[in-house]
């Protein structure tokens, strides 16, 4: 390709990076604005201040934000873990075994993935209130499985399909028991797929909003996105903008770290499973 053409692709690449980062840069900038600066109509603050962060981490908004952060981490990690365990077995069966119902399981996963969350949340709302799961961790972990399981099953079976299963036979001929073949050959080959799936499932759970606002009412189980969404509604702050921005930045940090470290895997996971992300 010619030098001129190459320069164009570089320019295009820079434009994409700007496009992707600009709104993030904006919310970061906003989070450093002092109350007087918020309405200055400018992108950058005139003075940088950590006030918004101290408000959500130690100040009067901390009671709202910190439990939400703890809830989000706990609930999302547990939901991700459960989904990965369940779908690991399912994906192994789908990729490795020949049994009737494979198609049914995959179709069900697809159907669940395209299911409107709001159609699920209404009846759950009633049921949870009835059986006492409303505003509890399990009350969110269970519906989160409906988000994470379909994606995990699809992505993981796509990964598992690529494992050369002949390896297992080769190991058996080499003198391995079934268990040895599984542990020494299959597990090392399958681990990256499981790990990638876990990241994607975590993103999905971390992103949830509908379940969060519908199935919780207090800081006992309310996750961050829901807490954020209700920040503005709470009248205890004069102007919640700065605090909201700071909270938004805090919850974005884990996501950014995961993306930066595992970008290659995330891309392959997304395109492999080709399921809603």
């Amino acid at each position, binding site marked *: 390709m010619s030098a001129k053409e190459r320069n164009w692709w570089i320019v295009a690449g820079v434009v994409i990076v700007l496009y992707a980062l600009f709104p993030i840069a904006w919310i970061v900038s906003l989070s450093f604005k002092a109350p007087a600066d918020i309405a200055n109509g400018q992108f950058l603050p005139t003075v940088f201040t950590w006030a918004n962060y101290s408000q959500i981490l130690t100040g009067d908004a901390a009671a709202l934000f910190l439990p939400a952060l703890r809830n989000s981490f706990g609930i999302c990690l547990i939901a991700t873990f459960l989904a990965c365990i369940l779908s690991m077995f399912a994906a192994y069966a789908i990729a490795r075994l020949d049994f009737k119902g494979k198609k049914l399981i995959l179709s069900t996963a697809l159907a669940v993935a395209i299911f409107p969350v709001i159609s699920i949340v209404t009846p759950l709302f009633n049921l949870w209130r009835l059986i006492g799961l409303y505003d509890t961790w399990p009350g969110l972990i269970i519906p989160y499985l409906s988000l994470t399981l379909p994606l995990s099953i699809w992505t993981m079976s796509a990964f598992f399909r690529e494992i*050369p299963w*002949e*390896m297992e*036979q*080769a*190991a*058996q*001929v*080499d*003198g*391995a*028991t079934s268990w*040895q073949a599984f542990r*020494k*050959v299959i597990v*090392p*080959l399958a681990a990256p797929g499981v790990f990638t799936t876990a990241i994607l499932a975590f993103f999905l759970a971390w992103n949830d909003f509908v379940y969060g606002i519908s199935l919780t009412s207090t800081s006992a189980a309310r996750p961050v996105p829901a807490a954020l969404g209700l920040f503005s509604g709470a009248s205890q702050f004069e102007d919640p903008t700065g605090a909201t921005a700071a909270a938004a930045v805090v919850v974005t940090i884990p996501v950014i770290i995961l993306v930066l470290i595992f970008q290659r895997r995330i891309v392959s996971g997304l395109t492999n499973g080709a399921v809603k992300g």
Partner: protein
Amino acid sequence: MASVEMKNIVKKYGDGFPAVNDVSLDIADGEFMILVGPSGCGKSTLLRMVVGLEDITSGDMIIGGTRVNDKAPRERNLSMVFQNYALYPHLSVFENIAFPLRLAKTPEAEVQEKVRAAADVLELHEHLDRKPANLSGGQRQRVAMGRAIVRDADAFLFDEPLSNLDAKLRGQMRTEIARLQRRLGITTIYVTHDQTEAMTLGDRVCVLRRGVIQQVASPRELYEQPVNLFVAGFIGSPPMNFLPAKLRNGTLATPFGDITLDPKRGADIGDRDLVLVGIRPEAFDDASLVDEAKKPYGSTFRARVDVTEWLGDSQFAYIPYEAPEEVVEQLKELSRELDSEALRTQAVVSIDSTSRIRAGREAEFWLDARKVHVFDPATGENLTRDSDAGAELTRLAEEQRAEEIDEARASGLTVEG
């Protein structure tokens, strides 16, 4: 080291179709046996039953005198080279080769020693720390072999090990495998669909068709005394020509003139109207170049040459001919079964490379009647097969083989070489 005996082995899949049907085969200790046939003939299935990756529906699989039908692969002490090598991508070359030893909990020093020895034989030394993904096709192939020879297995099994290599490398690895097997003198079963590999490597070759054994014999016997149309058509490249012929008073009337057989072989044909005459390309020659003393043993005919191929050391000429409707179908069916695409009825004829015969012209050819086989078009049976001569060829091959192994063992060649 051990012999492998198969007794009436049958493999049926869920739908009841027999992929392998009543196969009985004895492979002697130290013998190199080839399983060959077109795709779908059951050769790989048979191999996988030997190693234990496939259940045996009925029959007995006996390795080293023990029935192994119900033994797991790891209890059979066999080593196998897979078609796509099945190298463990997360392990280095060293660890790939060491894998069977590690499973057997071999002491570290011995592992080191054995892997190094195997790496020496296969010239893999400088690659021991690399991962399989960074190796070339030929190197991967050698690692797979290393994993097979590092262990004192009772037999080697190869499942089309060279089919993923390019032609040149395939030739090199073929000789490498032959040398290794001679050197180790280990029982070997080798599956291939490539008849060059079958002819060059095997002590004996087992030709399979639709799960049934057609013939088990030395390469020379298969080539010179095939039992039927299928074996005759499968072995040899370019393949044997099959010409329709009418039988008239002991003379075969073919599109290329009349052929008179010697009385004994003429009598074998019996009383038939239409037969198929099988003639290998090298049984023909440019009539102008044939020794006058040889000429009476065959017949000459004139025909128009369609295309010639000059290959330097040899030359082929293609001669189209008309065949009756009833035989055309039969020949098409045969070529389909042999995985080839015969578009027209034509004979491939090998002529001397100095011959001046040119495409598009008529030329005179000579045909050696002594090398002609006659087949029953309905059953495919070879009517003129001389089973004594065939058995003699195989016996000679076995003798020669035994000598080679004795020599190899006497000169003290082992893995450490």
